[in-house]
């Protein structure tokens, strides 16, 4: 039996991102399962690296019960971050560079060393040098943000862009920091880091473990986006977006008008 066309699917997703035009779901018709979907993701990210981009970290997806229920799964997923996706804190993005961008507040970890796959939470503090408030801009390459689990994995878990605020030392508790998403100074989403698998450190553990299953190790200096603390909000041209995290501070971006 011939497996799904990994390179072909990756090509379609890369083209959708390059053109800024959504495509239909691919997994069902191509028989893409979760493992093959991660192979597609690896291939499409490899194409970005061939263009000169650098891998700078990992991101987690589906880390909230609400999102898992929405997609009908009970497992988290991970994607890859490149330097091209990073936007300076307070920087500007162009909505036109994306298909239908949404923003969500997160927390980011800065890796101090390469964590071992399966390393327990107890070792967390020694693998992470710093933590920061962050904004993730997600942008599904699928029409209407509508996808199956293999679809979203193949699409690099909807990665679009990200902003990391000022790094600070890891506070005593990370499991219940209040999180706000402000658009133009108005609070539009209210949540807590507890929405991230109960504790963002668990998302870190899961990320190390799941990426390890696919032969991917995290490196010192990498950024780890732990997952969204609230629902995502559509990014409008001209909007000023700020994530505010208790004890950590803020990260912001602006969408060009």
């Amino acid at each position, binding site marked *: 039996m011939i497996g799904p066309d990994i390179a072909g699917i990756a090509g379609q997703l890369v083209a959708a991102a390059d053109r800024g035009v959504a495509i239909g779901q691919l997994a069902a018709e191509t028989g893409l399962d979760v493992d093959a979907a991660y192979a597609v993701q690896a291939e499409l990210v490899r194409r970005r690296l061939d263009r000169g981009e650098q891998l700078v970290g990992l991101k987690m997806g589906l880390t909230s019960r609400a999102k898992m229920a929405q997609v009908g799964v009970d497992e988290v997923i991970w994607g890859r971050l490149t330097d091209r996706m990073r936007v300076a804190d307070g920087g500007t993005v162009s909505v036109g560079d994306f298909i239908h961008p949404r923003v969500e507040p997160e927390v980011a970890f800065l890796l101090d060393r390469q964590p071992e796959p399966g390393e327990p939470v107890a070792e967390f503090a020694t693998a992470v040098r710093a933590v920061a408030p962050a904004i993730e801009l997600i942008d599904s390459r699928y029409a209407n943000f509508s996808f199956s689990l293999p679809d979203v994995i193949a699409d690099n878990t909807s990665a679009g862009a990200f902003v990391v605020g000022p790094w600070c030392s890891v506070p005593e508790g990370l499991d219940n920091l*209040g999180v706000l998403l402000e658009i133009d100074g108005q609070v539009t989403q209210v949540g807590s880091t*507890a929405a991230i698998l109960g504790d963002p450190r668990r998302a870190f553990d899961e990320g190390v473990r799941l990426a390890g299953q696919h032969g991917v190790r995290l490196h010192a200096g990498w950024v780890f986006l732990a997952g969204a603390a609230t629902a995502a909000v559509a990014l409008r041209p001209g909007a000023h977006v700020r994530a505010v995290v208790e004890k950590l501070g803020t990260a912001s971006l602006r969408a060009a008008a």
Partner: protein
Amino acid sequence: MTVDYETAARELIEARESGKPCPPLRGRLIPDEDIDSAYLVQQAQVRQWLRRGHRRVGAKIGLTSAAVQASLGVYQPDFGVLTEAMAVPDGVEVPCGRLLQPRVEAEIAFVLGADLPDERITTADLIRAVDHLLPAIEIVDSRIAGWDIAIVDTIADNASSGLFVLGTTPRRLADVDLRLAGMVLEQAGEPVSVGAAAACLGNPLHALAWLARTLARSADPLRAGDVVLSGALGPLVPVTPGAAYEARISGLGSVRTCFAKEVEE
């Protein structure tokens, strides 16, 4: 429509005591938008409780989240009265038979150290008047069948009050970030509701200010010793019989409640 406050109050008290909910009061016993009459129905119930020897220990603020206000089409909070009979100790099992259709939500309890008789107050006055804070779980309930409530239904029904649980370690205002404090409500270790203090009118002190001003215009202003429940810091959760819930609020600690397995007949 002439509102018969006592009849409406009696219907709600009967529903509370029998455990059998009543149909909505709006359009039947209270005109749709008649908020003043709804509060008079609430007061008639409270008078009845006080006549039976119960003590007013504070107040609860409701309709403090943007989502709940939008769902009811109202853009102001409401309030109900707390009596000592509604208080349940931290972690002590609640018999389900005491409640009709309970839901739980995590809140901040303000305990006042001074009277607030004047509606001309600032944030500074409130900060001086708050003696300490406690984490709280409010067990809200509705005497209206199926929670089919409009604004006048919930106000008449004492702002859908049920029971409340206070934590036992007092904290100062300075210990808590009243805008950013994270909240998680867990059932068996799983977060079932998450939020932050800002979900309550942007800052729970705003809710307290609204209540203090509102009650300063009434015969019963807030007094030293009163407990004020701020309003929810996140979405409310329908109670599962037999379940235990723990609310944790950043800077405030935690508080627990649990429910009996079987609904008493």
